[in-house]
């Protein structure tokens, strides 16, 4: 996926190209180009650009879904409310806390699986790849329901398995995965790790594109497994890891379906499932405060944009774009 960032660089280079007056043939080519990209261009204006701007306008209105004709301009009061609403800050905190647990966990797990599946020592590689990817094909809601029962404190296999090791897991003092604000983060993580297949395959493809000569050269220099991993694999895989990190962080800030299917907008247990998007959905659609909802949506937009900018800013320190790439 390193091409993703490369494509952006390429785009920047092109913009700097000197301008020459266009010949009729070039103009004809340009017209065809615009014609081909017009579906996206129209869709972008209709479904992204105008709604983003409209959201900004909405955020200055007192606009109730049930009484649209009574919409009134209220200035910055929705914004003031968004920033002083304790639920906004709790939800941001809940979201960040979960990402600090889940992002490293899922990235490392996906990398470990990819290394395992890429190992020359593994037999029946293809079968294992398919089996590890299979849960990613389970529709999310179905996966949530399965995990809800596997993690059932009394009848679920996880607690019964833990009990085999001698730890008390079932019963009243046991592990109540969906009623404890800390344990529930692990329940969310299990569900998330089940869908790690896509990230794993992206890593795997990245590993396979590393030239084997580099490993041979490192081995000749006496590098062991760990040294080869640190000096060859990880640097060459860093663009892929960067891609996974960006997509993963942006995704987790919009975490919604899992807490929603499990707990709706109740925030159970103890506010631990009140994620940013749950807060937004509750205000905008459950309560019908479209103006306030728009302000919250813009708040989320700003958080995502800031985080993306920070990630891209750190990229130069740890992401290697080898010039030796063919």
């Amino acid at each position, binding site marked *: *996926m390193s*091409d993703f960032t490369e*494509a952006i660089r390429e*785009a920047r280079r*092109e*913009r700097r190209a000197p301008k020459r007056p266009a010949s009729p043939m070039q103009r004809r*080519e340009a017209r065809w*180009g*615009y*014609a*081909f*990209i017009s*579906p*996206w261009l129209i*869709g972008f204006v*209709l*479904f*992204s650009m105008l*709604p*983003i701007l409209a*959201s900004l306008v*909405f955020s200055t209105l007192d606009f109730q*879904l049930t009484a*649209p004709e009574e919409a009134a301009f209220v200035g910055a009061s929705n914004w003031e409310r968004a920033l002083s609403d304790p639920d906004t800050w709790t939800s941001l905190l809940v979201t960040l806390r979960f990402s600090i647990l889940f992002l490293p966990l899922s990235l490392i797990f996906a990398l470990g699986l990819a290394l*395992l599946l890429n*190992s020359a*020592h*593994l*037999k029946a590689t293809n079968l*294992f790849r*398919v*089996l590890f*990817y*299979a*849960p990613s*094909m*389970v*529709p*999310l*809601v*179905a996966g949530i*329901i*399965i995990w809800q029962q*596997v993690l059932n404190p*009394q*009848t*679920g296999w996880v607690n019964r398995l833990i009990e085999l090791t001698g730890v008390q897991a079932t019963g009243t003092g046991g592990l109540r995965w969906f009623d404890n604000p800390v344990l529930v983060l692990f329940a969310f993580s299990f569900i998330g790790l089940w869908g790690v297949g896509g990230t794993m395959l*992206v890593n*795997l*493809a990245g590993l396979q594109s590393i030239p084997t000569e580099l490993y041979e050269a490192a081995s000749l220099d006496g590098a062991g497994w760990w040294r080869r991993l640190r000096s060859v694999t990880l640097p060459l895989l860093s663009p*892929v890891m960067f891609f996974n990190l960006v997509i993963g962080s*942006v995704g987790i800030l*919009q975490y919604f*379906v899992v807490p929603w*299917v499990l707990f709706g907008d109740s925030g159970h247990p103890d506010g631990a499932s009140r994620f940013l998007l749950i807060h937004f959905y509750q205000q905008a659609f459950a309560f019908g405060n479209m103006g306030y909802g728009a302000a919250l*949506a*813009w708040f*989320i937009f700003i958080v*995502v944009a800031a985080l*993306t900018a920070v990630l891209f800013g750190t990229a130069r320190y740890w992401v290697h774009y080898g010039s030796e790439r063919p």
Partner: protein
Amino acid sequence: MSLKIEASPRTSPAPERDATETATRRRRKRILLSGCTTLAAFLLVVLFLMPLGYGVVSALKDKDSVSDPNSSILPVAAEVFEYDGEEYDVYAVPMPDGEVRELALVEKSRESSVFIDPADPDAGPIEWDGRWRSLEPVTGFAPQWGNFVEAWNTLDFPRMFGWTLFYALTTMVGSVVSSALVAYGFARFRFPFRGALFALLLATILLPPAVTLVPKYAVFLQMGWVGTYLPLIVPHFFANAFNVFLLRQYFLTIPKELEEAARIDGAGPIRTFLRVIVPQSIPALTAVSLFHFFYAWNDFFEPMLYLGGNRDLAPIGVGLSYFSGLYSTEPHLVMAATLLALALPLTIFFAAQRVFVRGIVISGVDK
């Protein structure tokens, strides 16, 4: 190789023998390593897929044993024996000679009871002295296949499948066709601001959908589209940034000479696209179509939002979440419904796994 080692230890000079010994040692080490790696992967995959196994087992249990913390792992039920039109429970009965026989209890009384041997009912009643309440009932493997039928009918699966398929297929066609056109535009034509527009397209991948949601919902509501599939389907006909990116990467790998030949034959850009690019890109188009199909099959948030209270139209994900909420006291039925919902995507995946792995490669990681 092992033959050579056995045949020549005495005659071969020392250095060569050392070499063959290192080779055997290395080979042994490799076998050991590969055994350990494969075993580790096997244990991990068993743990990883354990929830699926739990799902299958729970879906086949009856209501009582699925909520019983001490029930056995496999779906079992007390065995019964039908005799003279009546059903009798089967117990493990320790006989006076020390043998334990599985017998059907036909006549209960406190201190002694009458049994019948299910294997040989004509042998007549067997009198047994002892308290029948102290006996262990005999259980046998008894999968409740009926759970699937019940879940299928309660949820009205055919209708849900129908809507989900309709949604997945129409948006798949819309998204793949429009994305291919846009990708071709970006891959082959030079026009002002092409680079900036492509960067903008990539940036929309990171755009949080929430920021466009409120006005879109308000407009769709005004248009009377909320409660129908229109707000879910129409936007997919305007290309999807990720599909455009993947397809453009693939189109760039097609040699330009093919298109030039077509152009010399007098084909315009549209004909060139249809006659040259599309046939060359079948693997990429298939992969993108499959990715989209699964995305739509899984889609939850937008269908839930835009279909609103119209539960008759609910696709599988939304319907399943309603069902799991309403039937939380019947976990076996919920699990059966869940397995029905994941059967189709999982089957397609196992059948088409090659296309999948290739699809990831096409996505430009491995040029």
